[in-house]
Each structure stands twice: as C-alpha cells, then as structure tokens.
C-alpha cells in the first residue's frame, strides 16, 4: 500500500478487473481500497466456483467515476447485482452474463426501484442473466432506460421481456441484437411446419 495516497498510481487506472470467486478471488479487504481508483471507468467482476460461496457486494465500494459494469460470474444473486449497480450513479454500460444464484422470485419484486444510473450506453444480457428477475429489475428503474444498444441472448420464454426492454428504450435505441435459443422446440416446430406445408 501507499502510505501517502497522493503518491498512489491508482488514479491512472481506467479499468478494474476483479475475480470475486474461484481460485484467484481477491480478499474482501481489497474493496476497502477500490474507491482510491478515482478515474476508473470500467469494473469487471469475474469468477466461478464456490470459493468463497457467498460474500456481501452491498458492502463493496466502487468509485463514482465508473460508467461501465461487467459481471460474468456464477456467485451472485440478482439482489447482489442490484446492490452493486445502486452504487454506480453514473452507470451507462451494463453487461451481465454467466449464471445466477437462484432466489425466491417474490423477493425480487421492486428491487429496481432504487436504481438511479444513467443507463444510456450499451446493455448486454446473456446466459442466466437474461432472466425475468434481472429484466424486471431494469424495467422498474424510475428514471427509465436510455440505452442506445441492446444485446440480449435468451430463450423463447424471455422474448416478451426482451421486447419490453427494447420498447422502454424507445427513441434512444439505435442498435438491437436479439438471439433466441430455440433448441427446446426445434423438433416440434419443424414437424408442425411440415404438416402445414403439406
């Protein structure tokens, strides 16, 4: 550590990549110092595995300069993601992928109402994070969504929520990318279409 904070090179850092799980996870104490990265623009939270099984992102501190958050991890819940986003009042870009720790869906109602970021950049939702709970959280944000790019890869069941997300962005949306995972219905679908054709 730098005993004189002004001598620390932390303010030169633009991107923080932090392993929050797995073999290379950083000690919890690291988050006492993350606000020192006063010019960081991007935070990446990465890592899979059960070590440690669960920590407390609500106590983690992030610099207010952050405008882009990337979470690709299997050790967080939607509420914990909300707690991280809630700290980032200038957040524009949001990328969530990987798996989620499941919680009771009733506990997720209204979790987005406390968020106040800008949400005016790029949104990417993939894997289990293209999830009803996460999408509803974003739809609940009182100040609305202003993303210019939306990129969602989800199963067919999540298509209606994806449509709502795109619609909420309204006039600001410039690029839309939607990938539907269709493997579950492929066989039934092809049989159905063949019957109609004949």
């Amino acid at each position, binding site marked *: 550590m730098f005993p004189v904070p002004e001598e620390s090179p932390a303010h030169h850092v633009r991107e923080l990549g932090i392993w929050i799980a797995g073999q290379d996870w950083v000690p919890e104490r690291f988050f006492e110092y993350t606000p020192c990265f006063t010019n960081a623009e991007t935070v990446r939270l990465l890592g899979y595995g059960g070590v440690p099984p669960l920590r407390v992102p609500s106590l983690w501190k992030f610099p207010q300069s952050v405008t882009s958050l990337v979470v690709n991890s299997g050790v967080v819940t939607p509420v914990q993601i909300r707690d991280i986003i809630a700290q980032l009042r200038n957040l524009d870009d949001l990328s969530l992928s990987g798996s989620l720790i499941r919680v009771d869906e009733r506990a997720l109602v209204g979790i987005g109402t406390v968020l106040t970021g800008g949400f005016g950049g790029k949104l990417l939702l993939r894997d289990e994070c293209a999830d009803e709970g996460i999408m509803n959280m974003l739809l609940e944000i009182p100040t609305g969504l202003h993303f210019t790019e939306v990129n969602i*890869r989800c199963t*067919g*069941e999540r*298509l*209606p929520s*994806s*449509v709502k997300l*795109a*619609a909420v*962005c*309204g*006039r*600001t*949306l*410039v*690029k*839309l*990318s*939607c*990938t*539907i*995972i*269709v*493997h*579950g*219905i*492929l*066989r*039934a*679908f*092809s*049989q*159905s*279409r*063949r019957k109609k*054709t004949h």
Partner: protein
Amino acid sequence: MPFPDADSFVEAFERSFDFSKLPNLQEVKLGFRAGRTGGGLVWIPMALSTVRPATSLRLSTIRLDFAPSPLVNRSVLSLLEGATDDLRRVEYEVARIEREFEGVVNLTVVRDSVFKAVLATLNVRFRFCRVEWHSMT
C-alpha cells in the same frame, strides 16, 4: 411464460418487436441459436419463417448459430440431395424477408463445418443473400 407448442412460439415472435416505436433504430440483428439440428436443413427455413417486420422495415443481419452436427460422416452431397424441399423453402423465406424488409439480408451462420459447403451453395443460389460462415474454433 413457457411456450406449450411450436406455433405459439412463432406467434409470440411475430408479435414481438414493434419497430415503429423505435424510430431511431439503425441496426437490427436477429439470431437463432439452435441445439441439435439432426443434421438436416429444415431448421434454417424454420428460423427464417419467424422473422417478420412488425410495422416497419429495418433488419441488418440474421444470425443462425447452431451446435456441431452429429452427422459427421454424412457427405455434403447427400445432404444437399436430401434437402431439396428445405432449400426451396429457404429460397422462399429469404425472398420474402428481402421483400418485406426492403433490404439486403446478411445471413450469418456459425460453427458447423459440414454446412459450410451447403451454405456456400446457398450463397450462389440467392442473389441478395450474403451467407457468411464463422468458425468458432
């Protein structure tokens, strides 16, 4: 909201994005990520048939992304010979999409080496359909 059958999936997709409410939209990419396809081509017109313009005409790319074919020993020639109907349906769907969206459709296909030659054939057949093949390896 699970889809009880294939038709409800199609209906949901056809009711999906209302582009008229997204007036500044410049680029739309629709993708389909399929699991096992059984080695046939039927999934291609299947996926294409779900692409409908809600009310306005913006579409840049259709991306078809599917798992490697389990039929590794099947020759491309035999695959093509057995897929005449499917190719005709692909041709029909591409023509329809081009007409309804009034633009060039970039059909991007990912992953499957067996289909590389098949899609090269499609590329020749369809004047306005630029088929790309991307290796994931």
